[in-house]
């Protein structure tokens, strides 16, 4: 068993964890650090339920090994506090069961930060990384557009 003791900077806190080389970041943040906001879905990079931020960009945490996370700024849904995108999801009822919601919010939050002037095609391109089995997607799109607009006017 190949073990590594590594430092991960998650939600602005330095964490020391001992991981197997083959542990995904998703596994480590959920099972070892108790951050269960990122959800396991397909575990294959297809659904986006496990999306977190790495250096501000969205990242599917099932596509990353914990050992790759050293030296990176990692943010999970637990690290976002009452952000415009979270408020917009509540206001626009952009979820039903909520399983996909942390992933969509992390993706949407990053979009707001990285592409504040995103046009419709950019919004679509980013949101296509996540799958929702309950909503019609239109509420999610509305919430993202609302947050983008609010961001521009503030």
């Amino acid at each position: 068993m190949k073990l590594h003791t590594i430092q991960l900077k998650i939600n602005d806190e330095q964490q020391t964890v001992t991981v197997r080389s083959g542990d995904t970041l998703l596994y480590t943040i959920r099972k070892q650090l108790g951050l269960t906001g990122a959800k396991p879905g397909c575990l294959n990079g297809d659904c986006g339920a496990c999306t977190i931020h790495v250096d501000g960009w969205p990242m599917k945490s099932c596509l990353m090994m914990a050992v790759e996370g050293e030296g990176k700024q990692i943010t999970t849904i637990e690290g976002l506090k009452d952000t415009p995108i979270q408020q917009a999801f509540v206001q626009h009822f952009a979820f039903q069961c909520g399983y996909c919601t942390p992933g969509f919010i992390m993706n949407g939050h990053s979009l707001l930060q990285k592409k504040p002037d995103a046009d419709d095609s950019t919004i679509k391109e980013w949101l296509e990384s996540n799958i929702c089995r309950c909503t019609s997607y239109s509420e999610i799109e509305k919430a993202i557009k609302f947050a983008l607009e609010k961001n521009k006017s503030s």
Partner: protein
Amino acid sequence: MLPFSFEYERPKSFQEAVTRFQQADQSGKEPMYISGATEFLTLGRINQVYTEAAIDVKGIPEGKVIQFDQGYLVLGANLTLTELEEANVFPLLTSTSKQIADHTARGKITLGGNICGQIFYREAVLPLLLADSQMVMVGPEGVKVKPINEIFYERLLLQKGEFLIQVATDTRYLHAPFISIKRRQQWDTGYPLITIAALKIDRKVRVAISGLCPFPFRSNEMEDALNNLEGSPQEKIQNALASIPSPILDDVEGSSEYRLFVLQNLLLDVYEALKFGERE
């Protein structure tokens, strides 16, 4: 979670990476290089990849460059597809790689990983085949530079212990007229049914195709048929189809007949955009 146990190393230089590979090889650890690690994780979890030593090359600085040098655009193989898109220095490459996977996954998939992956599609190879790019590889024998059309035959023909570090493209190809079209069975993300990329240079149209055969390819015979000055576009397309390499994929994504049908229509789209086989 990968079901097997392996050593993970992240060398800082390509010399160190090669040495680590050789040492692990001598110890029988079946080493492999990884960069974005997405295929490593997704195929590894279903036991289609195995190693006891993964050598992660993404931290090697030469693999991260985007620079113009002596008439060439040099791109590091460890750049993620998102980094390539954001820089947008080679529009045909941007337009083709922007259709790979989905936006979030492209933030992890690397150019080198896509070119050297096991999956059939490897769509980022298409623009490089069209632009006669030079592949810069490092290995036990040092640095090697080879034109892609000499060293890519169904896959990049790397020697044991070698990996791709850079890709260099003559700048005259960067702004040549092009078209890149991806047809999927359904949805707007993920693997293609067929992807075609075409570029016009020196009054000739070049085409490269992914998803038709179990490997991406560019065929001189097909291009000769398309660029023939005689005959209608449809006749040229029929002649080009006669030169397709085999086998043609026939799976749940699409039968071989359907793939050929889609390809014919794609070639018509290429004709509309770039007008192959016409006197100017």
